[in-house]
């Protein structure tokens, strides 16, 4: 009877080598809060499970160019306790902290949330709105790409065989910036986003929006960066008219399906509602920073 192999290398190079050398199906294990569920449900039967939590580079948070580099295997609980990241990117941290319960938080990682490539993943719209990038290591060396390019469809990523996401980089931010993430779930906890909306914006000295990014989750095959929604804010004082336009643009960009989690037209409607509410929260934070 064939056995499932488990490896826990302590360097990125060793990890890449193991992945490249392995035959059959391989899976990277971070917190395992998606992977173990999939294993138990018998959706996947990997031959090799490669645990990346023993690689120091993947478990550290460091400052870089005024921003933060967060190891792909840093847990939600650790991130939530990092005052620096929390102060600079409260919307990203609140998105990560929405994932699961206390138990899940002490295992779940941003790397896993991103690479699991669920269209409903909570941290991803917040990361996209933040303009985050993902660092990737693989047999052909290292590369860094915008987070929105990682997921390509449900359960699918742009990662090639042997590639690992090593970290996520959150850039430095100008004064008077704020971000926020909101998701809609019918319950209060332990649910999966029916719609998610992340907004990041910066105000100029006069209180006008000088930069903005808006992202939606759970309304397409992957999280969407919605430029039209951002444009609805830029150059405005983020007043009701601008917020209405933002909501319209968000609803227009949403292209959900009817499924067990919500109807198509419901998700379209709520995309606008949540984008508006997230923009208001981001605005409040920008004014206070």
């Amino acid at each position, binding site marked *: 009877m064939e056995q499932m192999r488990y490896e826990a290398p302590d360097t990125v190079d060793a990890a890449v080598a193991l992945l490249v050398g392995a035959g059959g199906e391989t899976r990277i294990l971070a917190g395992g809060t998606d992977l173990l569920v999939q294993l138990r*449900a018998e959706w996947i039967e990997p031959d090799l499970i490669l645990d990346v939590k023993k690689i120091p580079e993947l478990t550290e948070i460091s400052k870089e160019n005024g921003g933060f580099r967060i190891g792909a295997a840093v847990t939600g609980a650790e991130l939530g306790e990092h005052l620096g990241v929390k102060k600079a990117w409260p919307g990203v941290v609140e998105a990560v902290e929405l994932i699961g319960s206390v138990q899940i938080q002490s295992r779940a990682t941003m790397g896993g949330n991103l690479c699991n490539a669920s269209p409903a993943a909570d941290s991803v719209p917040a990361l996209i709105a933040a303009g985050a990038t993902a660092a990737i290591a693989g047999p052909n060396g290292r590369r860094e790409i915008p987070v929105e390019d990682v997921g390509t469809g449900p359960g699918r990523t742009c990662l090639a065989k042997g590639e690992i996401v090593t970290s996520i980089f959150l850039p430095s931010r100008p004064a008077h910036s704020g971000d926020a993430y909101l998701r809609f779930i*019918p319950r*209060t906890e332990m649910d*999966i986003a029916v719609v998610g909306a992340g907004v990041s914006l910066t105000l100029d000295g006069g209180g006008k929006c000088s930069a903005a990014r808006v992202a939606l989750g759970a309304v397409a095959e992957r999280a969407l960066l919605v430029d039209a929604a951002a444009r609805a804010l830029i150059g405005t004082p983020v007043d009701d008219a601008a917020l209405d336009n933002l909501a319209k643009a968000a609803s227009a960009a949403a292209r959900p399906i009817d499924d067990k989690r919500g*109807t198509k037209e*419901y998700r379209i409607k709520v995309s606008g509602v949540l984008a508006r509410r997230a923009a208001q929260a981001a605005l409040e934070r920008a004014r206070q920073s």
Partner: protein
Amino acid sequence: MSTAEKLENGKFKWVGTRPVRPDGVDKVTGRARFGADLFLPGMLVGRVLRSPHAHARIKSIDTSKAEALPGVKAVVTRDDFKEMPSESVAAGEMMIDYRDMTRNIMAREKVLYDGHAVAAVAAASASVARKALKLIKVEYEVLPHVIGVIEAMEPGAPVLHEAMFTEGVEPTPDTPSNIAARNELGRGDVEAGFKKADIILERTFDTAPVHQGYIENHACVASVSEDGKAELWCSTQGHYMVRAFCAKLLGMDISDLRVTASEIGGGFGGKTIVYLEPVALVLSQKAHHPVKMVMTREEVFRATGPTSGANVWVKLGATKDGKITAAEAVLKYQAGAFPGSPVGPGCMCAFAPYDIENVKVVGYDVVSNRPKVAAYRAPGAPISEYAVECVVDELAEKLGLDPIELRLKNAAKEGTQAAYGPKFGPIGFVETLEAAKSHPHYNAPLGPNQGRGVASGFWFNIGGESCATININEDGTAQLMVGTPDIGGSRASMAMMAAEELGIDLDKVNPVIGDTGSLGFSFLTGGSRVTFATGKAVIVAAGNVITDLRERAAKIWDIPVDAVEWEDGFARPTSSNAGEFDPLSLADIAAMAAKTGGPIAGHAQINAQGAAPGFGTHIVDVEVDKETGRVTVLRYTVIQDAGKAIHPSYVEGQYQGGAAQGIGWALNEEYVYGEDGRMQNTGFLDYRMPVASDLPMIDTQIIEVPNPNHPYGVRGVGETPLVPAMGAVACAVEHALGTRLNELPMSPPRVLKAIGAIGEAQA
């Protein structure tokens, strides 16, 4: 002091107090052993192969490859179960038919729902079992399927059972259909009643099937010996019922099968029938090893429970001042793949809270390609009473009356002739309404987008057969054994009643649940019967212990037994005429048992009669987010008549649990089926039961109108708490919105649709 005196002046020592439950420590430390926690030497893993089709004829099943796989010890299919003639028996509050039961545990001619069992294997490990399932080749002829109740009733709908001709209609139809039966009840003349009405409302409601949602999945371990004797360990609400069903399906003598009920992690009615147990027994028989079977949550959703989804039409007529003159309803209940929905009790309960002269209720039992429904707290009642309560609320609104006042005007009281038959004895419905009216909750202010709902509910409660044994140990402690699994803290209540009767300390009574080899037949834990019926058995058994103790004291003192009385744990001479003796404690007498005739015990085997119905009234406040359709439950109060609360905390726990389940039913729980007839939300992630943070603290108020047929006045409390919840939440949501949905669940998309924020859902 006699029980009557104690009741009179409320001087109970244990009854009505809140001691820690005897099973508590083991449960919080993880020592308690549930269905999956038994490990036997040589035990195999049993797994079930389930149908991927909603409806298909099984053309052939080839198990040869699976049997040849190393590590596979047995494979079973329909060929391993004998055909059963049609024979209906009571399974708790529902009826089952052995012909259907054998087909439900293992499909025969056809698979009738996604998840229907078609084969099972026993193997040395879970991974071998999994591989073996993949090697079983089943050839299906896929048939058109039907899921919804209205669709299933339509002429031309795919027919599940070619030999099903609607019962209860004259003449019997000559073509088969999915309508298993029609039933009707009523009194008076509804036509005449509606003529007297100043206002008539007619409304139609849809409810979704909901799962009982017990935390512990079905699990069992079976061990069949070569001499034909068998042992079974399982998570069940009634091990005597499991024994009867399995013995019947396997053709065994009842005495050859010993069933032990494990600790049970919830049942709510869903563990009153068998799924895995007969399969595990047959696998064990074939494999010559013990076999453990444990369902996954996905299997639980696809193949067990739930209660019916339904379509309910209600018509109410009333005079201007709010007196209901006539009531009519038509209930169409899903039964799942085999007949036997709880539409009967649904009909009986629909208008039971009200004193109405003219009533007519018609029910349809309808099969469709979904798992066979199982009992769920007050089976059938929550559905019909939800619909009726919503119309009662609308009636109050239209008449400009307070909804509690309207209910008080029509409330059933002692002596009211219920439409379903009997005259009520003492009942506490009016008391719950009065308590609700004067409750601070009912009069608290509401904010914007908030609404308050009130609804009431009724359930019969049952009695039935129960055994109890009390063995007095050598040191004067008492071993109490009953045969009804403890789902809701009943061991605590049983021990309290025994301690109260015997006059000894509660910590001297150790209550356990006996297996079927240790105690006579006890009907299952269901119908809110245990504290009433098994409690009565415990009291009778304690009385027999006391008789024995008095006889022993009489022997020790050498006086006639009539001259000895038992009071507060001591034998005393009835008067000084009988002689001067120091009182003897139970421990004193126990210590001398050997010299006075041997061990001391009391047994009882009774069929408890006189269960009294339960009535409750719920008040709930909600807030609705009109942009997202999300409903937040802000405040909830349950008021219910318990007769007498033996352990008030566990009564309150029942009230709170019922409300919590009702909130889930009202707001988010539903089965989602794909076009292919397969269930899509087979886990708690997408089958949205409420989590703790979704609920406010649920306040409770216990009303005590004693049941004259129980020594302490107990009436069942386990089921009624679910009944009013959906109506109360629906009315609250509707008051917050200013529009009525008449459909469950009131999920966010439905709420937005109801207020016109979005249009019709696109398919």
